[in-house]
């Protein structure tokens, strides 16, 4: 009788041990799934961000409606993520931002023209290396079509 009781007790203890091991395994798996889910969510966000980020180059051929004319087409790099865009003429360090690509390009044209207007009034001796380089490039790509208003 006592032998049967002892066997029953061993079976119960073994079953409890198995249950404990199973519980700890399930707990560890749950934790791993939680970590993996969080990493997948982060990766999805990163992929979405990279997908939205766009960089491309457009050729600018006109400064309309500004009273200036392009002598030659210039490459304008557009960078943006869907919320903010910058348009840059890298060679001359002329750049502008905008909420849309069109907005960035419009602001860029304005910035190009105002840089030209600004630098044409600065005597050569008062221009540092960066503005002097800018002016050299700007006057080779842009020309004033109407007389300067005094």
């Amino acid at each position, binding site marked *: 009788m006592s032998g049967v009781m002892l066997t029953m007790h061993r079976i119960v203890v073994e079953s409890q041990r198995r249950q404990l091991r199973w519980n700890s395994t399930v707990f560890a798996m749950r934790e791993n799934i939680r970590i993996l889910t969080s990493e997948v969510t982060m990766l999805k966000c990163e992929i979405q961000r990279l997908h939205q980020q766009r960089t491309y180059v457009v050729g600018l051929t006109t400064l309309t409606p500004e009273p200036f004319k392009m002598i030659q087409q210039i490459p304008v790099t557009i960078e943006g993520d869907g*919320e*903010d865009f*910058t348009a840059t003429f890298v060679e001359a360090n002329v750049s502008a931002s*905008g909420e849309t690509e069109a907005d960035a390009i419009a602001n860029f044209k304005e910035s190009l023209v105002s*840089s030209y207007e600004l630098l044409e009034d600065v005597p050569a*001796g008062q221009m*540092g290396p*960066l503005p002097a380089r800018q002016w050299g490039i700007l006057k080779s790509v842009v020309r004033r079509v109407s007389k300067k208003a005094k």
Partner: protein
Amino acid sequence: MARIITKELALKIRDKLEAQNITPKHAAHDKYGVYHNGQLVGTFGIRRASEKDKGHDHVQKNLNIRTAFAKQLAICTKSREDYLREIGQIPALPESPTAPELPESSEPQE
């Protein structure tokens, strides 16, 4: 762009660089110039808008500096002198100050 430089930071950069308003007549946005020894050494534009978080990621491109440098200029770790050094207007600081060479010690001859 990730909107790293906002209008608020661009205005801080303007103040830090002691930039002067040199906006041409009829320009839609403000233009600022950085002067050093009577020379114009850099220009950048600030958009006319009331929103402080308006994107100004073009500022670092106008000023010919890295994005991180522009941010440091705005948030105080970099100064006007650091900017002038960065664009080569004032000489760079030596990497590590070297002690002046001492003359070789000569044993007193008897």
